[in-house]
């Protein structure tokens, strides 16, 4: 059984705009995949629905066999505690130090200070920022800020790591480093889904790519060359 399954998922906004149209995809536990497509293709909506920040208009999303689209309250909160999410504009809190930003997911679980410190330092050393833990985000470069965001996303050891345009503001060199970082987290068993419109970058990774166009999946497979439109069977 796949860990994540989209079954006929459609998202239509009140405006009538359809961001996802009848999407059927699944992700095995411990796999890694890229979501790609033009701006407005529906990549962010895909991740938003998976994070239960919005509900699909039709269809269902199963995670570990449970339909997550109608969850609410504590159960939804606990579900999110088992996910990690990274964004282009990283959502770091300016009035908190790097350490405090990264520790936030642990603090809300009421973890002991000692354990928090250990876990935060482990996460920061994974992204290579251990020596910057006392600094405030504004004193870091964009690439470093993004890595702080990643450390925060993985600090609670999520089973699933989602990223929406994590390299959006970065130059190619740094972008590559970030993608390698995600690959490392995938190699220790985390399921990783990264949305990115940077075709060159994701094609060079040699991993599964799901392409969206106007909300529909038009391609799904391990592919290094995307240019010829080929019909695809979506077996992951």
């Amino acid at each position, binding site marked *: 059984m796949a860990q994540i399954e989209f079954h006929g998922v459609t998202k239509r906004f009140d405006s009538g705009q359809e961001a996802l149209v009848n999407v059927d995809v699944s992700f095995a536990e411990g796999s890694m995949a890229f979501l790609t497509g033009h701006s407005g293709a529906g990549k962010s909506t895909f991740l938003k629905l998976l994070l239960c920040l919005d509900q699909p208009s039709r269809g269902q999303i199963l995670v570990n066999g449970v339909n997550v689209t109608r969850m609410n309250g504590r*159960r939804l909160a606990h*579900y*999110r505690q088992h996910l990690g999410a990274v964004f282009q504009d990283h959502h770091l809190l300016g009035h908190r130090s790097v350490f405090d930003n990264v520790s936030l997911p642990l603090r*809300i*679980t009421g973890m002991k200070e000692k354990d928090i410190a250990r876990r935060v330092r482990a996460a920061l050393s994974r992204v290579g920022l251990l020596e910057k833990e006392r600094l405030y985000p504004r004193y870091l470069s964009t690439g470093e800020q993004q890595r702080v965001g990643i450390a925060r996303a993985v600090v609670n050891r999520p089973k699933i790591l989602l990223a929406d345009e994590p390299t959006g503001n970065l130059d190619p060199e740094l972008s590559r480093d970030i993608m390698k970082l995600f690959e490392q987290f995938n190699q220790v068993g985390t399921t990783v889904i990264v949305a990115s419109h940077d075709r060159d970058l994701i094609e060079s990774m040699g991993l599964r790519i799901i392409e969206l166009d106007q909300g529909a999946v038009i391609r799904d497979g391990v592919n290094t060359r995307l240019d010829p439109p080929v019909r695809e069977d979506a077996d992951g």
Partner: protein
Amino acid sequence: MAEATEQHAGTRRRSGDPWPPVRTGVGAWWRDHLRIARETVHFVSARLGTSLLVWLLVGIALALPAGLYLIERNLSGMTAAWEGRPGLTAYFELGANEQQIRAVVDVLEKDRAVADVSVTSPDQALAEFRRYTDLADALDLLESNPLPASLKATLAPGVETAVLDPLLDRVGSLPGVAEVVLEKTWLERVSDISSVVSRLGVILGLLFGTGALLVTATSVRLAIEARLEELKVLKLIGATERQMRRPFLYFGAFYGLGGGLLAAMLISLCLLIVEAPLSNLLGSYDQELHLAGFDAVFLGGLLTIGALLGVLGALVAARQRINDLEIL
């Protein structure tokens, strides 16, 4: 959707809850509260100007009804203290003799509305007059005692002054009686005032309580706006709604408590200002200034009500804002 969930229910049962709450042992709840309390103090003290303003607004809103409550309590305390004292006083004519006085005493003592009768003879009246005034020397110049005899009848408890009219008429028509006076006017006035004040207190309490609530709701709303980014992050990383609301409930409680404290200070300031003239006024009616009700229970109540209103205001503000939080 339901079928799908059921279809996988077997898997779920075998593996348990796929997303169990992250267990961090007992004390997790306390640690969360402690952390938020610390952050609240930090947040409030970082915006001391705004916080003081909020405290002042809430304080004034609470001080008015609370002050009226105190006034009402003391007025009704005054009428209660006087309850044994109302009565009627009969003044005799200067030439009234012992028998005439006896006859009046008999009539009054037989009446069930009257609890107690005491007679003041002309000599006693004169002695009292000497004691209380500086005019005693002037009296020595007079050949005879100019003061009449009088008697004072205390009414039985619970007697309505209205039923006394026949008795008044009867005593007034007895020989030797010059005048009968019912001492009721002051009392009735005080009790009227106290019921007006009490109703006013309820109305003002509701109005200003709502005001205090709105002030804290607005301030909490501002605090939420200032921390919107943080709320988004919190929601995303799986904070429960309760956890997201918690800091703002602390704000509300903090603002409300501070408001209650300020209200107590405002009231005691007012009491200091009116103390001197009030004790003069009461002194002229033989009353000692003894302010009832400004005690630990009153203060505790004021703080509690302040905190509750604050929390309520925060709940109102937080509920709507957190629910329609847009992320991404």
